[in-house]
């Protein structure tokens, strides 16, 4: 982008010296405006919440780029003004190349800084920030669960800002099935669609992640449960959603999580005589021939 811009500007340059003076003034004005914009953007960024910060940042980056380009242009023009005709071309090219390189370097540095900041920011966003549009839905679901399944049925509940603001419920192993059953059959909630089920080995514990969807509420919800890593046992969801059948087999196959009441829990992807559970972090491949 910056390179292109510098190039375009280099190509545009007129020959006449009157024009040069004019352009010089223009460039100076531009640079000034860019600096101002940058300042402004920075000030705005400081005040603004998450969404707008990105825009402001981009604006600032763009302004910085423009400034760099303008600066380079100004310098090349100043040089050009002093030099005779023949040398001018070379000088011009040199200046253009220098401007290009400089702008590119600057843009790169700005981008890197921006992204470093962005990562930090995202991490902060996930812990504290303004209210999510899904907060009311989360509250509705949580209060329904607490009044029907019992107080303390949920270990935790929060909005996962990293995952498109999905309301996330963390259940006890004891209440996991009853919460799932409530979500499935409650008339207001009606989470009739199981979108995804899988397990993860977090080393300190095993975790099941279930992504449910309610067409009635037009809302997804993530239901999670933490299991003991040495004896990961949990009731199966197949009685509620038949679609949980194979995903549960997969979690059993690759992670060794046992699902009680599952109609046909088996190794679904690996061979029946496979040793160990490959997706566990401490898995050692077992090969008889080695």
């Amino acid at each position, binding site marked *: 982008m910056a390179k292109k811009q510098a190039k375009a500007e280099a190509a545009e340059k007129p020959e006449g010296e009157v024009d040069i003076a004019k352009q010089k003034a223009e460039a100076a004005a531009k640079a000034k405006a860019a600096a101002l914009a940058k300042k402004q953007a920075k000030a705005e960024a400081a005040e603004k919440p998450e969404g707008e910060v*990105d825009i402001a940042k981009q604006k600032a980056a763009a302004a910085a780029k423009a400034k760099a380009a303008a600066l380079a242009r100004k310098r090349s023009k100043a040089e050009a003004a002093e030099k005779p005709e023949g040398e001018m071309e070379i000088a011009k090219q040199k200046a253009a190349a220098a401007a290009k390189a400089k702008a590119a370097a600057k*843009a790169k540095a700005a981008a890197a800084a921006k992204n470093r900041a962005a*990562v930090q920011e995202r*991490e902060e*966003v996930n812990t504290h920030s303004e209210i999510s549009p899904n907060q009311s839905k989360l509250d509705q679901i949580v209060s329904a669960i607490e009044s029907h399944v019992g107080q303390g049925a949920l270990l935790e509940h929060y909005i996962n800002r*990293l995952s498109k603001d999905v309301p996330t419920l963390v259940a006890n192993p004891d209440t996991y099935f009853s919460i799932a059953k409530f979500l499935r059959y409650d008339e207001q909630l009606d989470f009739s669609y199981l*979108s995804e089920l899988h397990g993860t080995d977090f080393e300190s514990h095993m975790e099941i992640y279930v992504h449910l969807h309610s067409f009635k509420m037009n809302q997804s919800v993530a239901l999670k449960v933490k299991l003991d890593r040495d004896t990961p046992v949990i009731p199966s969801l197949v009685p509620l959603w038949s*679609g949980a059948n194979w995903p549960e087999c*997969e979690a059993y196959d690759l992670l060794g999580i046992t699902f009680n009441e599952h109609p046909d829990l088996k190794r679904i*992807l690996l061979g029946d005589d496979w040793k160990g559970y490959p997706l566990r972090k401490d898995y050692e491949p077992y090969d008889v021939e080695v």
Partner: protein
Amino acid sequence: MLRTEEMLLNVGPQHPSTHGVFRLVIKIDGEIIKEATPVIGYLHRGTEKLAENLQYTQIIPYTDRLDYLAAMTNNYVLCHAVETMMGVEIPERAEYLRVIAMELGRVASHLVWWGTYLLDIGATSPFLYAFREREMIVNLLTELSGARLTFNYMRVGGVKWDAPEDWIAKVAEFVPYMREQLAGYHELVTGNEIFVNRVKGVGIYTKEEALQYSLSGANLRCTGVKWDLRKNEPYSIYDRFTFEVPTREEGDAFSRYHCRMEEIEESLKIIEQAVEQFPEGPVLAKVPKIIKVPKGEAFVRIESPRGEIGCYIASEGKKEPYRLKFRRPSFYNLQILPKLLEGENMANLITILGAIDIVLGEVDG
């Protein structure tokens, strides 16, 4: 009376109509299927395990090998998950290139399905027509990405490189041509009495069953559920295009056929609009060379030709994911097969299996 006895029959794993390495053990009594047990995993390559030791950009080529008939959507779902977590803003031109590539992929994927499905149930020539048109799409995507099927085209923050000169014009030319051919397909097959008799009323399930079994894509829409993530949970720039979500009420193989054929038309509409609006600009956002995803987890889902494809990432803030999981639509869609086959006539086996439209690379991960 003739004595009959139950017999075990092995279909696959090496059988052309399974479109890959899929095995089905069926118990038959005469011509009637008593029980069917799918056996999968022949193509399991441990993508998720491998991904735990790879950087995000290095994982993209692995996604090509899941659903190898529509690899662009697989590329996209991974990039989309990473971008969602990082909060990257994608340049306009990149978004358009992605959408055009994904929709071309959808058309190509449906064409392969159409051709091979008809081949499975005994019509040879449609296969040749479908692959002729599909080859044109493959050529377009080759020009774009450098590979025929395993594109590895998308990147976190945009796409690998810009489209070659005139590429957009070629895509624009392809759209009306494809429309014309599609009309021909309908003339050739859709009203054909033999075909209709083979597929109409076969492999029926209800809306409730479809939801119960977590079906998605045309398999869900054929029961009347108007659900398409491009419309209902818009991602990328899909909210800018006018298109319909084709549905049917019957829930049989013929309705799935209709849904897919109409989806081709809708995809062409999207491509047409995208080509018209195609903007100038960069094709890759400024992202660091080594991508690190913030600590946390995310699950995103998008609409692939086969249904809902999802990607879950658990990150510890490192350059590799702590855990990567793909929600593979074919894997979920195939679960209903034993139920559909129970009590069915042997001759309907392939009709029902084919109508689900599975890709084994995706089933097995």
